[in-house]
């Protein structure tokens, strides 16, 4: 979706403009990134569908090299959900489309590469349909009354790449991005002495 078409609140539009200018995305600093960002890396994702366990697990190759769990047992979202990077996802089949419903995101990441804003109110719906062997159509609906004036929908396609497998990728191995990234983002405090 074009930026000009986004039903975005003024504060969020200002934030988006700032991010477009500065491009200091958390993903480059090895932060996990929920939402569509998970699928927007050059290395792609792998999936483990475990029907007898009623879970689908999606693995990132790049970025944080982590996994996301989608519960397929019809459970509701917990009421006392504490916000996390990937939120809490439940899924069900609607014909040949996998519909995933997620809430419980924190605000410490970007949902896409350009920095489209979101808040903890985000309720995301993803629809995945494998239209042919090599293609999955991905449609995402962003319902976030904290940043937008109404829900909006966007999407892209996944391409199946045969003859490739997951490889190890550790973002923290030797990442100079925290030193190199320049911009006016004051709250990225590189002087903090707080080391766990």
């Amino acid at each position, binding site marked *: 979706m074009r930026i000009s078409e986004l039903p975005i609140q003024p504060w969020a539009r200002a934030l988006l403009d700032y991010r477009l200018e500065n491009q200091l995305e958390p993903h480059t600093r090895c932060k996990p990134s929920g939402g569509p960002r998970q699928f927007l890396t*050059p*290395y792609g*994702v792998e999936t483990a*569908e475990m*029907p007898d366990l009623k879970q689908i697990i999606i693995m990132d190759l790049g970025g944080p090299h982590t996994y996301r769990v989608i519960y397929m047992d019809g459970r509701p979202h917990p009421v006392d959900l504490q916000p996390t990077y990937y939120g809490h996802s439940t899924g069900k089949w609607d014909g040949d489309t996998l519909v995933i419903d997620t809430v419980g995101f924190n605000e410490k990441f970007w949902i896409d590469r350009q920095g489209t804003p979101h808040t903890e109110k985000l309720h995301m719906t993803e629809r995945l349909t494998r239209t042919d062997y090599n293609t*999955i159509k991905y449609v995402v609906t962003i319902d976030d009354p904290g940043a937008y004036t109404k829900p909006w929908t966007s999407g892209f396609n996944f*391409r199946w790449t045969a*003859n490739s497998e997951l490889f190890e990728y550790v973002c923290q191995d*030797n990442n*100079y991005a925290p030193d190199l990234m320049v911009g006016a983002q004051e709250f990225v405090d590189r002087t903090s002495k707080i080391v766990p």
Partner: protein
Amino acid sequence: MRAYLLGGLIAGVLLLAGGKAMAHHSFAAEFDANKPVKLTGTVTKVEWTNPHVWFYINVKDEKTGKVENWGAEMGPPHGLQRRGWRRETLKIGEQVTVEGSKAKNGTNRMNARSVTMTSTGGRPGETLDAASSQGGNNN
């Protein structure tokens, strides 16, 4: 066949279909495409790591004789291997010429677009693509 919607029995990975979305934004946060640089020097160190391979060269200023150490960022090991690199391709002490863009923060660092081995290296005389994140190949 619903069980195989997302994956499949044949080895494979789901990738984003190509397009503009692949542009690698953090290149612009770290390097300046308007500050091209071309350096020749001797390799002092190679860091064959994710998310980016880095190597360092001593560059001698011909006029002053002063030697400065520069760091050059390439793509990840996985991307480089597809372009003919191995972990041992760059050897300490060999002479290379690196072309790319300077770091925005003014330090002696650059993003490499290509590397030419000029001396007794793994691939003498060859120029290899550095799998640069500029123009969006990788993460």
